[in-house]
């Protein structure tokens, strides 16, 4: 049972040791996975020990991304636990001279009707695990608000994040990032830096410039001095951030028709006679680059011993990072060990992999020593991959009665993934400094939910639909995956246009949506959000209420949001009501936390956030320049779950992002009568839309 043992073993101290390839990002996934195993085995959840992902030991489950952890790892662990339980019942039945269906499992104790019993641990080494087994249908642990396993250690300070790891032979590294994009090092005077107290070495490799020191303040001082003793080219290569949407729609790009339906189901819509359609409604939407903006800057530790490399990282994928490091250093993958250690909240491909590259490259200069690298705040906000700036244009042909005949959605964007070992293998940041050629980001393929085109297909019953993407060749700013990818702007655009169409048709926005929403699960969340969000109630002056709906990736969780905003000197979200259906709910409180957290992050993206840059470099490098939502700006949020215990669990991390953004935009229109199509919804963008 080697494949089983990689996932699940019985510990000597009456515990169940579980290894998932998915990693804890603050989303509570390890607790949810522990619940699934406990549920299926019939053991107390506190007996389940979740181990961090590490290469060669944990199963290879790729990335922890795309709201897929419960679908992937949860489903796999449930099947494995079912097989183990079935095997244990068979063995126990023999031992206890009865049949498996007579046995009852209580917290790992397998009891026969006549009172005799055994345990998983007593028979663990004698199990003959079948290839398949049916999972249980009555759940005792799944569906419960099991407290998160990681929280006690986070309230008493005992839990170690990657930033907190300390090895006895640990040094501190820092990398001097170039002073601009495509800036190249002309020369550097290393002598004054090497002369500083505590500095061990300076490492230069083409444009890669770093230091190693014996403590962190010394490394900080050294890298600050290095900035002064180095001279760089300073080219002006970035587009004008004041006309970013023009740049996006004119830069060289790969154009692809991602969806084209010419089969119009005219029976669903009254298309009368042969008259030409009413004039097209055309609307163009734009959002800027966005930053991950984790509270903890990226951090990693690396150590070389001969031709082997060990890395501690908060990457979303230990195996893909290993593949990338092995490729870069021309090592067999077996010579590289990558272990996950929790970092600060992670919402996509941030600087975690890059800083691991920094640490690995620096540590090569001091074999046998652990080298810890922690990015600065300005580097974190300036050099981690960004979520792409986008333009989405919607063009709609209407039938006479106001129903939609054809929907065309056209998107201009950089690719949404430059993850290690993804298509084309874009290099880590340190390798770029070494001189590796930049490779533009690409979009994940449609089976993975797409990237620029994520949720570009409206979730309504439309007779005609075309989706076209233009993925840019140039990548003046490095982009990669961030929570919901293109869905944030695509859903905003779709739902804004749907509201305009409802107004043209003289229909209530919720009622208009329901006319073209046949999926009962979609209808349910929309109706529930409207009901709980007091949809029909009047709003005060300068206040508005709006709705947004989407099924994430068109295959994931259903989510509808009713937002209320106050629009005076700025746009302030005052209330959110969210209804969500993510199939079977493994941990209701965990789902609420994810849905509410996603919604609050979306408020920030939609109303405030914007990566700023001049022609040379990113300029939004501090929390003052890249402000995120503060406690006083966070509105009350109600999350209502529709549990579907009979259906598979779907992810919750990203489902609320698009619908929340859309609901805010539509609420703003309700308040001011103005449609704002440029994000964020700052006073300047609102004013421009009003003129």
């Amino acid at each position, binding site marked *: 049972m080697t494949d089983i043992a990689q996932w699940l073993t019985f510990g000597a101290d009456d515990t169940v040791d579980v290894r998932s390839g998915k990693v804890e990002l603050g989303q509570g996934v390890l607790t949810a996975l522990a619940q699934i195993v406990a549920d299926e085995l019939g053991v107390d959840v506190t007996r389940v020990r979740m181990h961090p992902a590490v290469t060669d030991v944990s199963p290879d489950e790729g990335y922890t991304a795309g709201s897929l952890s419960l679908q992937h790892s949860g489903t796999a662990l449930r099947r494995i636990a079912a097989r183990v339980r079935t095997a244990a019942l068979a063995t126990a039945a023999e031992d206890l001279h009865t049949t498996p269906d007579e046995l009852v499992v209580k917290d790992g104790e397998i009891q026969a009707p006549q009172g005799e019993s055994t345990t998983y641990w007593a028979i663990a080494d004698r199990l003959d695990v079948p290839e398949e087994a049916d999972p249980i249908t009555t759940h005792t642990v799944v569906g419960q608000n099991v407290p998160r396993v990681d*929280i006690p250690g986070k309230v008493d300070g005992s839990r170690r994040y990657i930033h907190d790891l300390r090895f006895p032979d640990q040094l501190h590294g820092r990398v001097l990032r170039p002073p601009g994009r495509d800036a190249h090092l002309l020369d550097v005077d290393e002598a004054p830096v090497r002369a500083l107290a505590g500095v061990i070495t300076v490492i230069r490799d083409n444009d890669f410039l770093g230091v190693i020191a014996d403590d962190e303040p010394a490394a900080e001082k050294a890298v600050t001095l290095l900035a002064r003793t180095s001279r760089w080219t300073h080219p002006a290569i970035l587009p004008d951030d004041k006309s970013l949407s023009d740049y996006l729609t004119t830069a060289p790009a790969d154009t692809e028709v991602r969806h084209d339906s010419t089969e119009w189901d005219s029976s669903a819509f009254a298309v009368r006679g042969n008259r030409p359609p009413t004039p097209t409604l055309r609307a163009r939407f734009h959002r800027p680059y966005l930053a991950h903006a*984790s*509270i903890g800057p990226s951090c990693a530790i690396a150590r070389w011993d001969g031709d082997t490399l060990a890395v501690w990282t908060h990457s979303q994928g230990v195996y893909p990072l290993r593949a990338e490091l092995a490729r870069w250093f021309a090592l067999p993958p077996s010579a590289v060990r990558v272990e996950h250690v929790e970092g600060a909240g992670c919402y996509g491909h941030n600087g975690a992999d890059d800083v691991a590259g920094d640490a690995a490259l620096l540590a090569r200069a001091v074999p046998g020593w652990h080298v810890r690298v922690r990015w600065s705040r300005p580097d974190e906000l300036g050099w981690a991959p960004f979520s792409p700036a986008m333009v989405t244009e919607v063009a709609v042909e209407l039938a006479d009665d106001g129903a939609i005949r054809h929907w065309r959605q056209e998107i201009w964007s950089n690719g949404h993934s430059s993850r290690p070992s993804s298509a084309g293998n874009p290099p880590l940041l340190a390798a770029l400094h070494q001189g590796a050629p930049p490779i533009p980001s690409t979009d994940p393929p449609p089976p993975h939910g797409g990237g620029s085109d994520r949720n570009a297909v409206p979730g309504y019953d439309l007779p005609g639909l075309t989706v076209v993407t233009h993925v840019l060749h140039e990548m003046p700013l490095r982009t990669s995956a961030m929570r919901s990818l293109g869905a944030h702007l695509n859903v905003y655009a779709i739902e804004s246009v749907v509201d305009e169409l409802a107004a043209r048709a003289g229909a209530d926005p919720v009622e208009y949506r329901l006319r073209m929403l046949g999926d009962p699960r979609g209808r349910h969340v929309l109706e529930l959000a409207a009901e709980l969000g007091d949809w029909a109630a009047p709003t005060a002056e300068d206040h508005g209420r709006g709705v947004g709906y989407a099924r994430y990736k068109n295959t994931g969780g259903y989510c509808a949001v009713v937002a209320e905003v106050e629009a005076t000197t700025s746009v302030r979200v005052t209330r959110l009501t969210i209804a969500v259906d993510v199939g079977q709910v493994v941990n209701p409180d965990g789902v609420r936390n994810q849905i509410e957290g996603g919604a609050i992050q979306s408020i920030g993206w939609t109303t405030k956030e914007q990566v700023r840059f001049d022609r040379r470099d990113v300029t939004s490098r501090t*929390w003052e320049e890249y402000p995120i939502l503060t406690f006083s700006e966070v509105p009350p949020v109600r999350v209502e779950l529709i549990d579907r215990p009979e259906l598979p669990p779907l992810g919750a991390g990203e489902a609320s992002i698009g619908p929340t953004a859309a609901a805010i935009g539509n609420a703003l229109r309700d308040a001011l009568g103005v449609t704002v199509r440029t994000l964020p919804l700052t006073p300047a963008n609102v004013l421009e839309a009003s003129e």
Partner: protein
Amino acid sequence: MRLTVNGVDHAVDRDPDTPLLSVLRDDLGLTAAKFGCGMGSCGACTVLVDGHPTHACDTPIWAVDGKHVRTLEGLRDHPLQRAFVAEQAMQCGYCIAGIIMTSVALTEREPNPSDATVRRALDGNLCRCGAHNRIVRAVLTSHSHD
């Protein structure tokens, strides 16, 4: 230089300009307070100095010579800690040590703060995961965990 941290006296032999956070984390092994920005603008490093919330990342140790420093590790089964568990008041938790220490100062000054007061007190503590409302609920209900 002498520091009193969580009631324990420590002699510290470091450059007086060394940030307090570095001494806490690297010399004393008290890693609950986190580095977030190094500029005193995110609150992840918040500790209490003579009862006042202070950013340990940009406070040099000469400024706390002889003063009483309190960190999250100094709390033992504090009502706020119990309330944060009860409300499951975090996602990643990186900001939580700073948030709990800011809240300790607030509730010591004002045992029954209003929702708006809690939010104002925490406006200097950033949370990216969106756990704000849970955190506010935990602070508001902490007195019931006495």
